[in-house]
C-alpha cells in the first residue's frame, strides 16, 4: 500500500511536470517526482519496529544477539543514497530556479506557451 501511494506521488509529479504551463509549477512537479523516488528508496530499507544499524558491544556478546540485531536493523544503504540524491536535487533545483528567474527578467512571464522563440 505505501508503495502504491509512493508511485501515485511519482505520477502526480510527472503529470505536473508534463501538463502545467507555468515554469515554476514544472519545477515543483519535478521536485515532487524526486521526493517520491527518495521516499521509495527510504521505504526499501525500512523495517517496522527496526533499530538503528549501529553495532555496539551488547550485540556482539553471542551469536543469537547478533542474529537478532541483523534481523531487526534497518538497512542503512538507502539512507546514504537518499542523502546523496537530496544533495544532487538541491543543486539542480537551485539551477532551475535561477534559470526561471533569468527567464522572467528577459520575457516578463513564466508561461511557457509565450516563451517560444525556438521552433522545430
Amino acid at each position, binding site marked *: 500500500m505505501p508503495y502504491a501511494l509512493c508511485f501515485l506521488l*511519482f505520477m502526480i509529479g*510527472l503529470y505536473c*511536470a508534463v501538463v502545467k504551463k507555468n*515554469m515554476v509549477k*514544472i519545477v515543483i512537479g*519535478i521536485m515532487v*517526482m*524526486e521526493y517520491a*523516488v527518495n521516499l*521509495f*528508496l527510504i521505504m*526499501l530499507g525500512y523495517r517496522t519496529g527496526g533499530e538503528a544499524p549501529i553495532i555496539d558491544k551488547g550485540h556482539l556478546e553471542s551469536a543469537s544477539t547478533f542474529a537478532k540485531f541483523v534481523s531487526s536493523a534497518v538497512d542503512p*544503504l*538507502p539512507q546514504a*543514497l537518499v542523502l*546523496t*540524491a537530496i544533495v*544532487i536535487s538541491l*543543486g*539542480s533545483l537551485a*539551477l*532551475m530556479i535561477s*534559470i*526561471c528567474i*533569468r*527567464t522572467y527578467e*528577459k*520575457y516578463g512571464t513564466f508561461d511557457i506557451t509565450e*516563451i*517560444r*522563440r*525556438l521552433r*522545430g
Partner: protein
Amino acid sequence: MSVPLPVFIAIPLVSAFLLPIFGKKGKAIATVLANLATVSLLVLAVLSIGQSRVYEIGKWSIPLGINLVLDGLSSLLLLAISVVSAAAMLFSARYMEQYTAKAKYLSLFLLMVAGMNGVVLSGDIFNLFVFLEIASIASYALVGFGCEHEELEASFKYMVLGSIASIFILFGIALVYGNTGTLNMAYISKAIQSMSLSEANGSGLNAGLMFALALFIVGFGLKAALVPFHAWLPDAHPSAPAPISAMLSGILIKTLGIYALCRVVFNIFGISVSIGWLLVVLGILSMVAGAFLAIGQWDLKRLMAYSSISQIGYVVLGIGLGGLIIAKGGNLAWASLAILGGLFHLVNHAVYKSLLFLTSGSVQMATGTRQLREMGGLAEKLPVTRATCTIASASIVGIPPFSGFWSKLILVVAAIQAHFYWVAAIIVFVSLCTLIMYLKVQRYVFLGELPENLQQVKENKGTMLVAMIFLACLCVLMGLLLLVPSLKQSILDPAVKVLTDGLLYSANIIGK
C-alpha cells in the same frame, strides 16, 4: 605504464575547483591551466589503452566498497572524451573571449569532463548516477551560458527533460536495489543471472526488474536523444557556445546515453531478442527522422544538431543489430562486426561532429550569424575553416578515404551478412540524405556570392585553427584504426569484446 584510475576524475575535478580562484585578472593563467588539464587527460588516456583493471576505492573490496573499472569499452570512451575535450578546450581559449566570466566557463567545462570520465569508469550503478548528474548539471549551465532569450529557454527545456530522465534512472536504480540487494554492477548482474536460473521459464526478469529496465531505456534514451525522446537536443545544442555544442553533440550524449545504455542492457540485464529489436527500431527511427528534419533547417548549428540525432541512430542501430544477432544465437562473427561498426561510428562521429561544430563556431565568430541564407562565398575569406569543414563533411557523408566511410561500410557489410537487407538499404539511403544536408552547408556557406556586409570578414587565428586542424587530421587518419591490425586489436576489439561477452562482465570483475 599503469595509470591509477581515480586520476581521470581527480585532475578535471580539482582543476575545476581551482580555476574560479583566478577570477577576472588571471584569465590567461586559468586558460593555460585548463588546457594543461585536458591535454594531460589525453596523454593519460592514450597511456591506458589496452589495459583492463579494477580499482577499489579506499581498499574496500567489492561489494562493500565502490570500484572503478577500466575495460575495453571504458578506455575507448575515455580516449574519445579526452580527444574531443582537448580540441574543444583549445578552441575555447580564443572563442570564449567574447563572453564574460571565462574562468567560470572553464570550470564548468572541466566539471563536465570529470562527470563523463566518472560515468565511463564507474563500476557501481549509483556512482554512475552521481557522475551522470555532475556532467548533466554542468551541461545545463553551459547551455544557458550566454544568458540571452534563446539560451535560457533552451537550457530550461533541456534541464526539465534531463531532470526527468535522471529521476527515471534513479527510480530504476532503486528498483534494482530492491530486487537484488546490491549496487555493484557486477554483483547485480550475478544476482539477475542466478534469479533467471531459478525461474522455470528461463527469462528470469521479474516484473520489478522489467520495469527497471524500461525506466533505464527511457532515461538513457532521453539523455542520448533517440528519436521519440529527442525534442530537447535541437534547441539545446545550437544555443550553447560552439565548443560546448561540440562537446555535447560529440561526446556527452554518447557517454551519458549510449555508453550507459549499453552497459546496463548488455552487461547487467543481458541482451534479449525483444530489447535487440527495440534498439534496432529506435536506431532506425532516429536515423531517418533526424536526417529528414535536418535537411529542412536553415540555421547552421540546428542543422548539425539534427544530423547528430541521425548519426546517433547509426550507433544504436549497429549495437542493437549485434545484440539481436547474439540473442537469436546467430553467428557471433557478424554480431561482433555489427557492434564494431556501431562503436567505430561512435568514435568517428565524436571527432567529425565536434569538428563540424567548431567550424560552425568559427563561421559564426567571423560573420556574426548562423543563418545559411545570410552567408555565402566565404571559401576565400575563411580558407582553413572551409578546408576543415569540407573534410568533416566528407567524413560524415562517408566518402572513401575519410573516417565515416569505414564505419558505415562495416555496418552495411554486417547487415547484409546477417540477412537484414532492408537495414543495409536504409543505412545507404540515410547516407544520401546526409550528403544532401552537407552539400547544402557547402553551397550556402562557402560557395555562391559574398554578401555586401561580409566583405570585411577575416579568418580566425591562433588556437582555434590549431584545434580544427588537429581534428581534421584525425578525420583523415581514423581509417587507420580499422586498417592497421595492431591498432584495431588494442583499441576497438577489446571494446567490442566487452559487449559481445555480455554477462561474462560480472565474472570478469568478481574473479579479479
